């Protein structure tokens, strides 16, 4: 019995080893086989070939009427290109993990959404997408002409184009949103600098004891304050690893964490907490800041409020509390310049696993440059989902009954300025954009592709330290700020902060050199 077991184990381990080996081989074979086959097929299928179904991947949730739109689009696409399209949606749950799986599993996907926040740059660097340079003039000349040359250049990674950028220029710069009616009622100053902001908050606290002056979750207000006080290179004030890079002198990288300014800011937050500007359980608040403002529970939003979101708040409040008024102070006004979104911000790429890359690109060209395709996918079926009134977009019914609200497919990437329809209420945002256009400067930050492989472990450790030691400081929950900051810095250094910062600085300066930025 014993002997038999032993020989059996030997056999078994051999079998397992063989199976694993075969598995690896199989994976390699199919992997490389598929990609070569894909490009070979693609090369010969410039004209209409056999009918194929393109797999189209978007983030988020699908609108209710998607099947109708899909069949309408397929009617057009079948006549024009002899293709069908299947629109797939990832849903917002663990979308980043799914995105990773979709791109790493070799599953055939023909078009996928890209953005800086879905790590376009690092996926492009790793070779997850196909380069479009040679395909564009061949299969999508209209699309190539539609996107301005400087945008094509801006999305290049290692001298190659991997994504089709959206040409609609928008601003996602943030600002302070506040209750203007309360400001007037109690005669408070406009919150447009640190001093006036504090005075405003004090006035709210004194006159409206039931309100929380600052709507905040996850200590995000710090990004707002930094934009109010400094001319950082990143529009959203969210530079990683506590770094300070100013727009005027981008090659100069300093550490904000641990600096005198940092200590001073943290002391301010402590004072604010003592005065009761934050809710006591601010780190556990699950409500979005916007819902707190819309419900009249909070008076000020300091972070995340871009023109679009502010406009949404205004519309919501008009319908629920018409007697309230909202004010807005854009941070670009304090900084003196505004950066429109980088072309990387919204785009579509063709993954390496695509079986029909050229047909996919041709279809995408239609989506962007053919008004029929564009309107169907952005606004739905005319007469059923929307109508055009005096040149404005008008939804039929309301958000509950309408199966395809405006941009219901999350089609931010294929917005075409020539065809775009706006809701009447959007005029205010467009006015704001016009104002920002006057102080426009190019975004020099988003083109940078951070590669964190050299310090992946340190990065994860630092994130933990940040949550544990910095967040409480950010909302003034630590009694002794100076000691607290020292402890945080000590722990951060143990986690490898210096290594991260110096490696990041090195990469940043290389990028500046290659992009020709002084």
């Amino acid at each position, binding site marked *: 019995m014993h002997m038999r*077991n032993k020989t*059996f184990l030997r056999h*078994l381990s051999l079998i397992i080893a063989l199976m694993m080996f075969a598995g690896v081989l199989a*994976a390699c074979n*199919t992997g490389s086989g598929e990609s070569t086959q894909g490009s070979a097929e693609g090369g010969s299928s410039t004209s209409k070939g056999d009918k194929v179904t393109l797999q189209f991947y978007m983030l*988020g*949730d*699908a*609108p209710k009427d998607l099947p109708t739109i899909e069949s309408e689009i397929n009617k057009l696409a079948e006549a024009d290109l002899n293709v069908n399209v299947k629109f*797939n*949606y*990832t*849903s*917002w*749950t*663990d*979308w980043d993990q*799914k995105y990773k*799986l979709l791109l*790493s*599993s*070799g*599953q055939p996907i023909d078009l996928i959404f890209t*953005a800086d*926040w879905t790590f376009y740059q690092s996926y492009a660097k790793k070779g997850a997408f196909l380069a479009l340079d040679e395909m564009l003039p061949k299969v999508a000349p209209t699309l190539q002409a539609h996107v301005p040359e400087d945008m094509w250049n801006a999305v290049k990674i290692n001298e190659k184009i991997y994504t089709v950028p959206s040409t609609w220029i*928008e*601003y*996602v710069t*943030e600002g302070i949103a506040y209750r203007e009616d309360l400001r007037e009622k109690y005669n408070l100053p406009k919150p447009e600098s640190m001093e006036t902001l504090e005075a405003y908050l004090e006035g709210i606290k004194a006159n409206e004891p039931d309100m929380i002056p600052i709507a905040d*979750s*996850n200590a*995000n207000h710090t*990004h707002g304050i930094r934009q109010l006080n400094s001319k950082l290179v990143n*529009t*959203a004030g*969210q530079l990683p690893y506590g770094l300070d890079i100013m727009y005027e002198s981008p090659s100069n990288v300093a550490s904000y964490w641990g600096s005198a300014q940092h200590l001073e800011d943290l002391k301010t937050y402590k004072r604010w907490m003592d005065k009761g500007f934050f809710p006591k359980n601010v780190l556990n608040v699950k*409500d*979005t*800041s*916007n*819902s*707190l403002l819309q*419900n009249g*529970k909070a008076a000020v939003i300091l*972070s*995340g409020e*871009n023109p*679009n*979101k502010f406009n*949404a708040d205004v519309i919501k409040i008009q319908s629920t509390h018409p007697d309230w008024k909202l004010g807005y102070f854009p941070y670009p006004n304090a900084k003196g310049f505004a950066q429109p*979104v980088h072309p990387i*911000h919204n785009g579509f790429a063709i993954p390496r696993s695509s079986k029909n890359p050229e047909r996919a690109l041709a279809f995408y060209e239609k989506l962007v440059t053919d008004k029929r395709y564009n309107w169907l996918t952005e606004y739905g079926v005319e007469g059923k989902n929307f109508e055009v009134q005096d040149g404005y977009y008008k939804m039929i019914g309301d*958000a*509950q009954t309408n199966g395809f*609200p*405006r*941009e*219901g497919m*999350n089609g*931010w990437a294929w917005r075409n300025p020539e065809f775009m329809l706006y809701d009447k209420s959007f005029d205010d945002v467009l006015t704001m954009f016009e104002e920002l256009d006057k102080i426009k400067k190019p975004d020099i930050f988003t083109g940078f592709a951070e590669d964190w492989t050299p310090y992946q472990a340190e990065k994860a450790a630092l994130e933990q330290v940040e949550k544990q030691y910095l967040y409480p400081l950010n909302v003034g929950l630590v009694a002794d700020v100076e000691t607290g900051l020292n402890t945080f810095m000590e722990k951060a250094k143990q986690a490898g902060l210096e290594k991260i910062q110096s490696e990041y600085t090195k990469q940043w300066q290389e990028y500046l050199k290659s992009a020709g930025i002084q």
Partner: protein
Amino acid sequence: MHTRARDSEFTMLFQVIAYTFILFLSIICLVPFLLILSGSFSSNESIVRDGYHLFPTDFSLEGYKMVFKFPTQVLKAYGVTVFTTVVGTALGLFFITMAGFVLQRKDFKYRNTFSFFIYFTTLFGGGLVPWYIMLANYFNLTDTYTVLIFPGLMTPFLIILMKNFIRSAVPDELIEFAKIDGANDFRIYFSVVLNLAMPGIATVGLFLALGYWNDWFTSSLFINNPDMYQLQFYLYNTMNTITFIDQMAIGTGITLSQDVPTESTKMAMAIIVTGPILFLYPFVQRYFVRGLTIGAVKG
């Protein structure tokens, strides 16, 4: 006489302590559930203004009204979950009892080999990516009901549990008797084993049913069609959309056109989701304790 009195005193004391302890534990378990229940019956404004209470301060049914205003999606998700739970549990029980029965038969020569294969996977798994590639690319199971049922059918732990249970519940002699009486293996399985293994089947069945009912991860990875979302995932996804709007929309500038459910609606959905499985518990509970202990002691 004296010692006996002291014994019973100790027993009394023990029981008092034990009951207090259990009572305390049950309250800890029940309070969050009560909070959800009361939250689902509160008006949204009162939740936002005053937070959650053990008893609703401002009674309202708006949460439930909201959920059932457009019930198709919830009902579809319900249908999917009920279907996968019933089919998955039935199939899973069949396979697991079969496997357990075969693996504990002493006259099955390679039972250790096969046990090892099963046991091996509990120690070394391929990880998420190979698992995903296997199901999505090789079996092409994306957007099918099969993918919701298939991966959960056979859990190594449950097979081992079932094997040990059958070994202890069905004496070898009994199987031999049955054989002598002319029963074949299938007959033995259906008439003898299944009857004697009832507590084990109830236990494993409950595990399986809970697993299927609470499953959201497979939906999350493999289902793109909203009509095929499982109930848990449907709920989880609506919650996540809110978190997403809060976290990601900062600096991304994307606009989302979906309606965000309110607090009371979320709570009402949580109640609707957990409700039915609560009623399953009392029915299998009497088997549950016995099935689990026997399986575990011999494990």
